[in-house]
């Protein structure tokens, strides 16, 4: 039996004693706050054995949902927090006799300026996820009529070749259109969002990806982003739009590593 000598860390947040009241995390464990004296920062944690959570995909998916729900609940209460990734554990250190809580506190004290600046910068902001793709079939219809002509007299090989060329033309046309739409949507989104991270495109087989991004948005501007999207949809019905969130700013919670220099390579 392993003892709960470690802390599983969910997030760092501005000190507020009741922020974790009644909130549970992975497998229903009650969460608590660890205040760090001398700073305005607290850590959202539960006690854990000093080993990572691991299991099959379904279990991990369940844990992720639980972690996200817990962090979101606390985030809505405090208006700002720095969410951690999955499996961030701090163990105690038998060699020096320091407890996990002491070690976490030491780390936070060292980073307190960065953490507090980040918490201030992210206060009142949320993350939204936007995924936009073009329905290729709908675009092909608009790209102009296929070449007229009686193809039935052609050989099967020739017909295959023509079909392939047509498909390639459609893909190219959709790609060009997607470029234009992307530039326009990106500009419109950046006029309301404070930051945007491109996430790389992953379109389905029958669609051409246009834009996939995480946005950092002030809470009061969520509707402004929604309006950009509904207008884009109205202008071009062939767009498929997914609009997710609001979430704590997962993709924007980042503390600059200190002194990352060429030395890391030597």
């Amino acid at each position, binding site marked *: 039996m392993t003892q709960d000598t470690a802390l599983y860390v969910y997030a760092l947040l501005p000190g507020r004693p009741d922020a974790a009241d009644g909130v549970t995390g992975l497998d229903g464990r009650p969460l608590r706050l660890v205040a760090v004296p001398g700073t305005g920062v607290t850590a959202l944690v539960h006690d854990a054995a000093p080993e990572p959570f691991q299991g099959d995909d379904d279990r991990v998916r369940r844990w*992720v949902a639980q972690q996200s729900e817990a962090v979101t609940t606390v985030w809505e209460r405090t208006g700002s927090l720095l969410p951690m990734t999955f499996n961030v554990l701090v163990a105690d250190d038998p060699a020096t006799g320091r407890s996990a809580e002491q070690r976490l506190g030491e780390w936070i004290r060292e980073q307190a300026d960065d953490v507090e600046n980040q918490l201030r910068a992210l206060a009142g902001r949320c993350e939204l*996820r936007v995924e936009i793709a073009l329905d290729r079939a709908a675009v092909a219809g608009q790209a102009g009529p296929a070449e007229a002509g009686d193809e039935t007299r052609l050989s099967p090989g020739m017909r295959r070749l023509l079909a392939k060329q047509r498909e390639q033309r459609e893909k190219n046309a959709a790609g060009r259109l997607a470029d234009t739409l992307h*530039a326009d949507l990106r500009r419109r989104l950046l006029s309301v969002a404070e930051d945007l991270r491109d996430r790389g495109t992953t379109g389905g087989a029958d669609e051409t990806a246009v834009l996939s991004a995480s946005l950092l948005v002030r809470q009061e501007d969520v509707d*402004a982003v929604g309006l950009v999207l*509904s207008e884009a949809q109205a202008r071009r019905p062939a767009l498929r739009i997914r*609009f997710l969130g609001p979430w704590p700013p997962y993709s924007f919670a*980042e503390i*600059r590593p200190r002194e990352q220099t060429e030395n*890391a390579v030597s």
Partner: protein
Amino acid sequence: MVSDRSPMRPTREPRVTLDDLVEVLLNKGAVLHLDLIVAVADIPLIGVSVRAAVAGMETMLEYGMMRHWDEATRAWAERSVARRALDLREGERVLSRMAGGHLLTGGVYHGWRPGTVYLTDQRLVVLRDEPREILWQAELDAVRQVRLKPERTVGGEERLRLEVALADGRRELLSAREPETLHDLLSRSGAGRLAPTAAGEEPAVAEGHLWYEEPRRSGPLWRGGRARLTASRLTWKSPVDARPALVLPLTDLAEVGRAPGYGPAGEGSVLVLRTGAGDELRVAADDPARWVRWLESARPVAAAG
């Protein structure tokens, strides 16, 4: 544009968003540079940062040093390592991977950015580990020449850097743990061949590195990237974006001018592109005069009056 349309509402309904959350929580975002301690199955990695620990495991996995570890631990370590790897394209294969970095020049920041250098059968990439981001990359068929270049470090020692000359005339400096090995591999993988034009793509009149001043709510931001001028349009794309952030049909380009003062490429490097609608776009080039010539000659004659 003013609209009475009702705004689209975001959803965080778990049934719809769980896959996205899994990706966010396991792969990206939520990354803090914590020098915290994870004790993996009774093997305490005391005093080692998570990043270093995972990097160490990567090495151990490569050399089979973890075979005595129990299966579950190994699987966890493998997952941790896998999420730091480069996202490969379809059919792309990694030829070599080593610690290294890219020298960022020309902008406000100037300095080495460390990461992992990947050589695949398609491109040369410098990937930052945490948070994972492509710091720099080049298609192999855009690489014209690679040579080893000695350089004296601040500490007074000499190290070999890899100078990569690209088709557009830029020269980039990379560091690598084994510069000679990387140089050999790059030379052998055929870097230097002329790039074939992608099927159906409009041929470029001009192509090269360009800065684009992207308008943003929080104030404009100069970003580095690649510009491509064809007979019909100018596009500009950042290497960290999937598609161009600027697409300007040349029929929309009313005027090309130079702006006084400093840009990211030095004094007098800024070009102002005025659109038919009266908007002003700003780009900056190392060779502004050449871009003005290219743009002027590509601009439709009818718009020149």
